[in-house]
């Protein structure tokens, strides 16, 4: 593919001025590098037309590989949008994320004190290997008997991950193989992170689970981030026990890993929607505890984004949909496991398809190629504006009933209902609101 030709936004036929009153482009050319749900969403969007190969595009949903090869050589008109930030890996590569978070924490401690910095203690003790090997060993020796998890920096879907309790296990591993200190191409060399394993995860009916939450960032400077209301909990198919640390099926909850587990039943689907989880936890622990928990989870998103705010190359053409993986421990403390720049958009079931379809559709609503939004919205589809260069406060009350913004409330299923119950429904939807 010739790299020079990657221009987008051909000036002739279309005006590059976006009109505020909603009169946007009449036809939006898109390019899509993936063949899953996003393909359907783009295809079915009115007025959007696919262009292939070298055609000029206004919108590009690309994979990170394409980005790496082509971004730097592309000229993009003002209106053009692309689905990744150039150096997203500052947030999504485990070793870089850890580095950025640690640095942010230090700054915070210096500037705002211990207490404030403690709010960044949502990631388990982590060391990048091989560079931090020696400090890792010190920490390891300080807590004998604890379990650690080794994760390759740039892999996904649970590949290459293992647990260990003895240094011996990794000393052997370290000696073996072609780990080079030179990092010519980040994609090639496998750096690893060693992370303290959370040995007391919160279990439901004896099973471990993690949370997948979607966060859409449309700008880093200023930071504007949206939180999708419909996340889900992914369950491990087998009962949790620390006695079998070799059984990766027990410990890893990715759907990709679970699919290969011997007793995996594809009919079964091992996910709960976020509402369901919240219901369950509220019934167990009471409303306030769970409210606090979700506020703390919001805190994780915001602080992780702030920590890379200055490192990520901000570009008005870029937006990014992240998949956050959060784990709860038995004290209901949330931990950040990782951030994915390319969360899986392949659906595992009909319900999953619908969730991802809506997610992507709403993402496109926010990116707003059609120029329909006023810019003042706090809710678009299933997304709530979580951070807009500062915390966002919700307007609870009757305002939303009269508003004309694009609130497609997927929780409502009533054609005719009284105002009282409509307000009631609205309050139900506003349950998971950004922290104030």
């Amino acid at each position, binding site marked *: 593919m010739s790299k020079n030709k990657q221009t987008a936004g051909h000036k002739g036929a279309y005006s590059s001025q976006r009109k505020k009153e909603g009169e946007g482009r009449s036809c939006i050319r898109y390019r899509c590098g993936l063949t899953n749900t996003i393909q359907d969403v783009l295809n079915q969007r009115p007025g959007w037309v696919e262009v292939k190969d070298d055609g000029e595009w206004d919108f590009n949903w690309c994979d990170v590989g394409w980005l790496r090869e082509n971004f730097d050589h592309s000229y993009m008109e003002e209106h053009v949008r692309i689905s990744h930030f150039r150096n997203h890996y500052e947030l999504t590569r485990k070793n870089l994320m850890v580095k950025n978070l640690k640095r942010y924490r230090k700054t915070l401690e210096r500037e705002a004190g211990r207490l404030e910095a403690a709010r960044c203690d949502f990631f388990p003790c982590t060391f990048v290997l091989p560079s931090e090997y020696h400090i890792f060993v010190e920490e390891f020796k300080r807590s004998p008997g604890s379990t650690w998890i080794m994760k390759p920096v740039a892999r996904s879907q649970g590949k290459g991950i293992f647990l260990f309790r003895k240094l011996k296990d990794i000393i052997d591993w370290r000696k073996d193989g072609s780990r080079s200190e030179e990092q010519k191409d980040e994609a090639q060399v496998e750096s690893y992170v060693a992370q303290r394993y959370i040995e007391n995860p919160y279990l*439901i*009916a*004896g*099973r471990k689970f993690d949370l997948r939450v979607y966060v859409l960032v449309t700008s880093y400077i200023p930071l504007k981030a949206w939180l999708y209301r419909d996340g889900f909990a992914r*369950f491990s198919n*087998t*009962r949790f026990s620390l006695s079998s640390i070799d059984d990766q099926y027990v410990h890893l909850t990715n759907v990709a890993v679970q699919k290969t587990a011997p*007793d995996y*039943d594809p*009919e*079964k*689907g*091992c*996910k*709960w929607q976020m*509402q*369901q989880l919240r*219901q*369950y936890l*509220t*019934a*167990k*622990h*009471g*409303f*306030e505890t769970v409210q606090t928990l979700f506020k703390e989870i919001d805190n994780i998103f915001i602080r992780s984004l702030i920590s890379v705010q200055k490192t990520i190359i901000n570009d008005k053409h870029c937006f990014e949909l992240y998949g956050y993986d959060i784990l709860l421990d038995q004290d209901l403390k949330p931990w950040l496991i990782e951030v994915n720049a390319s969360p899986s958009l392949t659906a595992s079931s009909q*319900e999953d398809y619908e969730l991802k379809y809506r997610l992507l559709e709403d993402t496109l609503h926010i990116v707003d190629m059609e120029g329909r939004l006023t810019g003042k919205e706090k809710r678009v589809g299933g997304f709530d504006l979580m951070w807009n260069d500062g915390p966002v406060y919700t307007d609870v009350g009757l305002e939303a009933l009269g508003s004309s913004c694009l609130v497609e409330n997927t*929780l409502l*299923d*009533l*054609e*005719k*209902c*009284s105002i*009282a*119950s409509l307000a*009631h*429904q609205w*309050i*139900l939807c506003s*349950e998971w609101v950004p922290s104030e």
Partner: protein
Amino acid sequence: MLDESAELSVSITQIVQRLKGTHLHSQLEKQAKECLHKPEIKLETLKDDVRRLLKASGMTCLPPPRHPRAPPEHTKEPLAYMRKAQVNWEKRILKSLNSMCTELGIPLARKRPVPEQNELTNKWNEMGTDEPGNIETQSPCFHSDMLKVLVGLKNPNNERSEDLTVRSHWGLIQVSLNVRDIPQTREMYPELGLTYGQLGIDDHTHVPPVVSEHDSAAAQQYSRQGCPTGLRAQLWSLILNTTDDPEAITHYEQLKARVIHHDLLVDNLIYKDVKLTASNDDYYFVFEDYLYQVLLCFSRDTAVLEHFNYNCATPPKSCIQSKSGSEQCAVVYPPNGVIPFHGFSMYVAPLCFLYNEPSKLYSVFREMYIRYFFRLHSVSSHPSGIVSLCLQFERLLQTHLPQLFYHLREIGAQPLRIAFKWIVRAFSGYLSTDQLLLLWDRILGYDSLEIVAVLAAAVFAFRAENLMEVTSLASAEAVLADLSTLKVMPLLQIFLFATSV
């Protein structure tokens, strides 16, 4: 005469049991104590005097009116043709159980060898990982069989004309029972009125005093407007009078021991049911293990037999032979007298959301079963029985949505054929869990299953427009296939209070 007093004392014991811990009970006690201080009381006639004085003070407790010579079955179910139908239904179930037994060559009950006992003890918390020995057992298609039985019910005293008129009943249930219509239902459920707030998911942080005062009757009243999610577990426990006391835990442990020692044929039915229903459900799959723990114990709980005092069904019996083969005696099989059927585990599954200590979960489920769920699979004329619920559903639909009913009838889609499965399961597995729990709040609050029939009609009313356009049973089923997005309370409120009558 002996029979009467024995019967009476059973009733009284039951009533006393249920009254314990309630406000009414303490009031009665107080009144009775006051009576004791009156001068007219004599020790010899203490009982009669107290009774007389209580009556005079305005408190009476009358036994249900009946003929003094009526045998217990007649009290439980006064209509002869219903009793007969129930007996036939039971025969069918028993026959299928026996043929299963013969086919598989498994005994009805067998003592487990010690290694097997040990293995089961170790795996108690993860029985879901086991592949049960024989899930090829056929379980009868329960719903359709049961529906056939209900449809076939006929009151021999009625002459039925085949003409379809405005005045005839268009539905499948052809017996006339007294069921409530909308005006009467409004009177029964005033707290569902449009001006009453209904609790949804917006919990109050303020704990209502009913919880701290352990007031069961007040808790029941409270739950009529819904329970807050954070308090539902406690409130239901209060309403059902299940306690955390050591007795309950011991009882559960005993049942568990029975499961370990003996394997029952009906266990296979349980395994199959759980694997096919709850484990395949998007939300309940997580609780698979709990379901086994509850249901296997339930089958062995002879305390459940008490509910046959007011259940018109009869527990099935089996003959066991003594080792020498010379003697036979009849025992109830399974020990609790209830043969599980396809979908049975769905009565338990929603409760797993509220309780995760096994003995607590067990107690609540058992109480729910012996108060409500048993009525959903036995043939009786009780207002909360499955027959009445089906009839009520059909009548409500015919009265308030005649065009829809007629249309569906014409295209061969009798509404009950679609709604039956919802009613039998009290909507478990069809509504989303939070909505289901709101519905069950009202079942407990009003001590009646009628709300299930009303909701079924309300669902049809809600989707009436779409249903008017369909032209086959299959498409009608499709319109009503997915209820997971429905909000129960607005639907009920509109149907009951915003429909013109």
